[in-house]
């Protein structure tokens, strides 16, 4: 799966869970500061991403996923 495909998958999740416009989802965007995803919605994003990409994202890892690019990298190397 390419990084672009992972971004597209994350964009779908972010739209479903937090109403984020898919066009706004890019590697450099911060989940909280740019996309306005609050902590409870982030939990939903993580659980949905685990299912979509068949990956485990432990709670202590979530705090390191500040940007969309961080999440893409994590999924790319752990899926």
């Amino acid at each position, binding site marked *: 799966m390419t990084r672009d495909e992972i971004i597209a998958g994350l964009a779908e999740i972010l739209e479903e*869970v*937090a*109403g984020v416009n898919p066009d706004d989802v890019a590697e450099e965007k911060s989940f909280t500061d740019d996309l306005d995803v609050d902590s*409870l*919605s982030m*939990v*939903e994003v993580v*659980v949905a991403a685990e299912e979509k990409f068949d990956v485990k994202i432990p709670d202590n890892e979530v705090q390191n996923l500040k940007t969309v690019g961080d999440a893409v990298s994590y999924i790319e190397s752990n899926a």
Partner: protein
Amino acid sequence: MATTDVVVTGLGATTPLGGDVASTWEAMLAGRSGVGPLTQEWAAQLPVRIAAQLTVDPSEKIDRVKMRRLDRSEAIALIAAHEAWADAGLADSGLDAERLAVSVGTGIGGAQTLLAQDDILEASGPRRVSPHTVPMLMPNGPAAWVGLELGAKAGVHSVASACATGAEAISLGLDLIRAGRADVVVAGGTEAVVHQLPIAGFASMRAMSTRNDEPEKASRPWDKGRDGFVLGEGAGVVVLERADHAAARGARIYARLAGAGITSDGYDIVQPHPEGLGATRAIAKALADAGVSRTDVTHVNAHATSTPVGDMAEIASLRAAVGDHPVLTSTKSMTGHLLGAAGAIESIATILSVRDSVIPPTINLDDPEDGLLDVAAHKPRQHDIPAALNNSFGFGGHNVALIFTRV
């Protein structure tokens, strides 16, 4: 007795009769029933397969993403509160947030969320349980959301007294203003538990009508053929305001909330006192609190839920505390029983009755009980209403009486 005058300056509702106050009131005056069959798959196995459901689903007014974090009872409380807030003209009034309080209760709370998330837990495990579960099911959730969205900073309160909740929440609003803790209180009740478990529970108590073949005729307070209440869902919110505060900003005033009386039976967890003594005392307290004479109370929006025992016990209380002269109605004949929202919706009806000098009908009163007082049966009735009483009683022995007067 020098107490602070409190007036009603805004109304909001979403009910089985309409998505706002205007459509609800119009349907009430037309004598329309909001009760219909339950067509959900889960209803097939229940002894009760009727309910009064909302005419406008909250998802028509609140976007999908926000609905993910709102229990239905919270969503409809928000809809009613925003209507009341706009109706009161407070949106751009420069009201000091630290003088604005909220008092919105629910009888049962986020039961639909609790049950839906339990299904997810059982089917898919704990990790799939929504992180929004707790704020969705907590009983203070509706009040908290209303406070959050209106920016209230003088306190957010959530009364719970079963079917007296909506009225008690309004009574608390009166207290808050009189005590000087707020100038404006957004007050009311909400309930959304049309779901198989609450229905099965009430049905097991033999409290509900099983007139499944004639839904529109099932809620029939004071009729000899009544066989229990019909569950309804909805929310009602009023804006209460210190009278001089409302006058200073030139607000339109619907009525005055002149007084309230609250008692507890101390008798049984679900049965009302057989002679209605708790209710009688609540009405007497409300009259004294309001400084209103019995003769001025020419209309009562009764609690009358269409249960065999409760309806006539209330009549005994009214005879004792008010007399034989008031004209009664039970709007539950049309809305069904909205539990924690009932007292709020019925307060709104009472307020509009006082303002418009008209009493909405009690439908289905085809074969009235012997010894009944004068009821506006079948058709609305024009009537001079200087003061009106709204009764609400709840499981647990809660009795709340509110008195609204004409301005």
